[in-house]
């Protein structure tokens, strides 16, 4: 097994020499920390529930919180299109998905917001937040997200949408893992985004492993971002465990998209410190030493340190947030456990597959 140790990546600075994250208020920074923490605690609870045999499946976003929350805070949350993938718990929470909704999805209970309990957990969808529905085959969402971006461009070109109207989606953000960039779907989506200079951001959360297959068995380049050049799209690499760096590149890509200056491919270098899913055993393909090295770069403790140094948060405040997270997770779990299962008949009615005319 090759060791995939974390590398240092220089922070992104805009042409004017500034970092967009410098202008984030203390309140916003606290909110960002809270989202990362909440996502982590929910995720941990899901693992516990699985190991108790109370849920069938969990696929984790642990370790990816920095790039997801950084991305979420950079866009117009609940308005801009987000076409996520199954690790995007922290991203969808940031956009407005509820902890209870997540718990309902783990248990497949009635009222599950994404699919009414039809899809596996973590297959997020929320039309009211402009979160698109995604499937399990990977990268399928990418060309669709290009289609969403195409629609934005189309509507602006035909006067169906005011480009300054911030109540309308002005960009489409889609996410996937580095392994999924091997799919034809990804290439074809990137190609449209490049050809039409679409308001499109593709966030590749590179955690080095596609289940067990490491990066070097997936592609012959060392950075996914290198591939962007082939589509005439700008490609950027960022430290995916540094939330402020992630916010910086996302804010840059967002401004570009809003201004009609085209698409951006962002590669966030991160790590998944847990197995691929509740059914996986990662000891078969990577060393414990490697995992331990990456745990030292844990995005939440890193951000916590920054906030303590900047005196944005105190240890007491952090403790309070921990207690709050536990309470929110407990409440969500209880609500989901108390919820009934969906009715069977309507879910097996052939009419349920067609939108009414």
């Amino acid at each position: 097994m090759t060791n995939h140790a974390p590398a240092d990546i220089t922070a992104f600075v805009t042409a004017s020499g500034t970092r967009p994250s410098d202008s984030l208020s203390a309140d916003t920074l606290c909110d960002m920390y809270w989202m990362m923490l909440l996502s982590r605690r929910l995720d941990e609870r899901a693992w516990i529930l699985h190991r108790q045999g109370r849920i069938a499946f969990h696929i984790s976003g642990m370790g990816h919180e920095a790039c997801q929350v950084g991305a979420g805070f950079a866009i117009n949350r609940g308005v801009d299109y987000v076409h996520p993938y199954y690790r995007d718990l922290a991203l969808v929470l940031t956009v407005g998905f509820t902890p209870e909704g997540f718990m309902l999805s783990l248990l497949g209970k009635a009222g599950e917001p994404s699919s009414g309990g039809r899809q596996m957990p973590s297959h997020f969808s929320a039309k009211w937040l402009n979160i698109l529905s995604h499937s399990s085959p990977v990268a399928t969402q990418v060309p669709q997200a290009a289609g969403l971006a195409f629609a934005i461009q189309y509507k602006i070109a035909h006067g169906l949408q005011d480009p300054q109207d911030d109540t309308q989606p002005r960009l489409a953000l889609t996410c996937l893992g580095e392994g999924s960039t091997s799919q034809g779907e990804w290439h074809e989506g990137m190609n449209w985004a490049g050809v039409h200079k679409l308001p499109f951001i593709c966030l590749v959360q590179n955690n080095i492993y596609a289940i067990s297959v490491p990066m070097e068995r997936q592609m012959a380049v060392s950075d996914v971002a290198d591939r962007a050049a082939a589509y005439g799209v700008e490609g950027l690499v960022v430290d995916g465990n540094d939330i402020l760096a992630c916010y910086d590149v996302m804010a840059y890509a967002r401004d570009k998209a809003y201004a009609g200056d085209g698409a951006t491919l962002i590669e966030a270098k991160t790590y998944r410190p847990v197995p691929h899913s509740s059914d996986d055993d990662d000891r078969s393909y990577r060393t414990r030493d490697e995992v331990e090295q990456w745990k030292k770069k844990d995005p939440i403790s890193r951000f916590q340190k920054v906030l303590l140094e900047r005196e944005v948060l105190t240890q007491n405040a952090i403790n309070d947030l921990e207690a709050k997270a536990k309470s929110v997770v407990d409440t969500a779990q209880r609500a989901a456990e108390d919820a009934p299962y969906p009715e069977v008949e309507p879910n097996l009615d052939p009419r349920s597959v067609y939108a009414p005319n």
Partner: protein
Amino acid sequence: MPTNVIMPQLGESVVEGTVTRWLHQVGDAVREYEPLLEVSTDKVDTEVPAPAEGVLLQVYVQEGQTVQAGVLLAVIGKPGEVPSGAESGGGASHTIHAPQPVMETAIAATVALHTNGGKAESHDTMRISPVVARMAAEHQLDLTQIKGTGTGGRVTKKDVEAYLQNRTSSSTTDLPPWEQPGSGDLFKPTGEFKPQAKLGVVTPPPVAPMPSTPPRAIPAEAIPQGVPGELVALSNMRRAIADHMVRSKLHTSPHVTTVFEIDMSAVMAHREAHKAEFAKSGVNLTLTAYFLAAMVDACRVMPIINSQWTDEGIYLHHIVNIGMAVAIDDGLIVPVIKNAGEYNLMGLARQANDLANRARNKQLKPDDIQGGTITITNHGVSGSLFATPIINQPQAAIFGVGIIEKRVKVINDAIAIRPCCYASLTFDHRIADGATGDGWMMTVKQRLENWL
């Protein structure tokens, strides 16, 4: 509509599970989401909640059985509702469709053609399409009277339509009964005039699949023909007993039986002396309690009898859980005294009475019949002198007690009258040899004959 309880798939790749424990018995009321049974898989052990509220009507998969995810485990419904056992969703269920009325008329029409026609016509004329069969039945037509124009003279729908149009008022249906032609059969069997007897229906009740049961050594016998009799439906218990007996004796362990005669004088004396005292504590001091106590002792001396065979070796149990065969109305059940070594005589008597009473009143909990390591059967209560019972798998032995009666014994060259019984140990000859079994029995005998 009964609701099926299905073996859940407890993980993406998990394909089967073992029913480790039923938390409710057949007949119990259950609430929705209430834990109904415990299931063990190679990934998780968990409780399975009831999928609906109602009464547990039927349990198809017994404790210890391993079945595929999706297999029907049990059915919950309203009290008195009959589980079909084949509601959709069951694993290898076989749906039994009620025959379509049309099919019946179609068959009837075809049969009528055979019996009435009798004129060995070509095979094709016998091919009656469904629509022709239906029309023939509706209009009570004799199809041999209709000229067929189809392939090989087949009577087509058009032929029937044409026939109906051209039919004159002399249709036989308008004739009084005495002018209608008979069927041509002399001396019809009188059985045809009787309403169909209920017992004549020989469709066996649907049986839930039992994937982990080995194939039966003896193929099921066909229902005898021509011998007067009636069919008694097999209860689940009867089926379970039958399967278990076949498995134990024919597939699992070579049985061997050793028989000892035991002088029960000391026990009888002790019982007489202490009966009243026990009764004050609300305990009926039965002879069973003494046998149980002796079994515990013998298992301590000869632990190999309190064991079970595994492919890796003989597993010696460190506690003695004695199964106690209790005859009930529709069969037999074997509740278990857990950790019998922990009880004194009063404790054993109390346990035995309680389990026997609850067995007869059908109040046993699933746990009560689990975990036996050795069994006692007191066949003497029915007058049996001695017997060779079948081992309750996966145990190694079963202890049988015959009737206690006064016998003439020669003691110290004098003739004496003593209450005696024959007791037997039937054991798994893979595990123990004759001397071991005899050693166990000798311990029992000495303990009982020297009761203080």
